[in-house]
């Protein structure tokens, strides 16, 4: 099981998935022209990780702006986590936001709505 490392660009977040710890971190804005191209390796990695063992999967998100296709991609990823959670797999999402920008928290709440797995929305002092 390999790690996944995608550097950030002006329009895409940095993504790091650690196979040892089972933690995926995403930092930044996401408004790529092709969200599928950006997120499909992430979804593939999640699929592989879930299939490879029994360990917990954690998503640590530090995302500010998402365009529409990135919103869809995130929802698809949460669907994968939801499915894993229903199959008794330990999964968790931590959505961090700058306390200066409360509206990101409201958006994270929207994402959280249909998720039954642990989904924490945490403010970080600016």
């Amino acid at each position, binding site marked *: 099981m390999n790690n996944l490392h995608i550097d950030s660009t002006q329009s895409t977040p940095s993504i790091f998935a650690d196979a040892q710890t089972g933690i995926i971190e995403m930092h930044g804005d996401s408004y790529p022209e092709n969200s599928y191209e950006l997120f499909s390796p992430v979804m593939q990695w999640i699929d592989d990780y879930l299939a490879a063992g029994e360990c917990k999967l954690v998503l640590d998100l530090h995302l500010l*702006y*998402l*365009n*529409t296709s990135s*919103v*869809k991609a995130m*929802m698809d990823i949460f669907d994968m986590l939801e499915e894993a959670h229903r199959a008794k797999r330990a999964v968790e999402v931590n959505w961090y936001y700058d306390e200066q920008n409360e*509206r*990101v928290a*409201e*958006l994270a709440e*929207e*994402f959280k*709505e*249909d998720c039954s797995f642990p989904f924490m929305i945490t403010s970080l002092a600016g």
Partner: protein
Amino acid sequence: MRGEKQIEQRVEALLCDPAHQDNPLRPSLDELYAEFRGLLHQIDRVTRISDRYQHVSREEKLSLSERYQKQLRQLEKIARISDRYQSMMRDLNEALKEASTRDALTGIGNRRMLMERIKTESGRAERLNRPLTIALLDVDRFKSVNDAHGHEAGDKALVEIAHAIVTSVREYDLCGRWGGEEFMVIMPEINAEEAAIVVERVRHAVMALDIRAGDARLSLSASFGIAERREGENVSETINRADTALFDAKRAGRNCYRIAA
């Protein structure tokens, strides 16, 4: 159905009865009954198969409609979230625009805003052949305020002066901080002489400011250079003339205005 069962039983009983062993109708009845049983069996099978098909198709329909509903919900949610992101960006954009055209200290327009507006007003004055006058204001001996009472007192004075300008000009005049202790007032629709009346109002308002720094009262005044836009003149030419007039006012002893030639 009850009737059918009864006739089946009767036929079977007749076929089994040895008394009818030699009846000439018996072989034909036997054959007919066997055929009847076969057909019955076939109908049964066809019905079962058909039921199964119906069941599968119903399941398919249910799962399709379930998937459709799910997609629909997802789509609505995506639209909702996306809309909120967009409105967040729009508000951020507004805030940025506000920040880029406001002077952070005094809250009035900054040089960028003044340049934008003077260009617009200049174009309008040229097009409609209307007068337009600008005034540059420079606080007199402002450096000594900073030196004697500190930057905090100086900043406080600038905020108060900005307020004095805003409240002294006409409603449609535009003022902003040109830089340092310099301010600009853009006055559409009036010539230099009419603008001088507005400027005098501002000058008196600045003199009347009661600003304390510790125990001392700051004694403030300002000098003004007024320039009425000439036909065909570009923005920087008008500003330069106002600047020269301001210099003349300073040379003339400060706390006064001069109108550009």
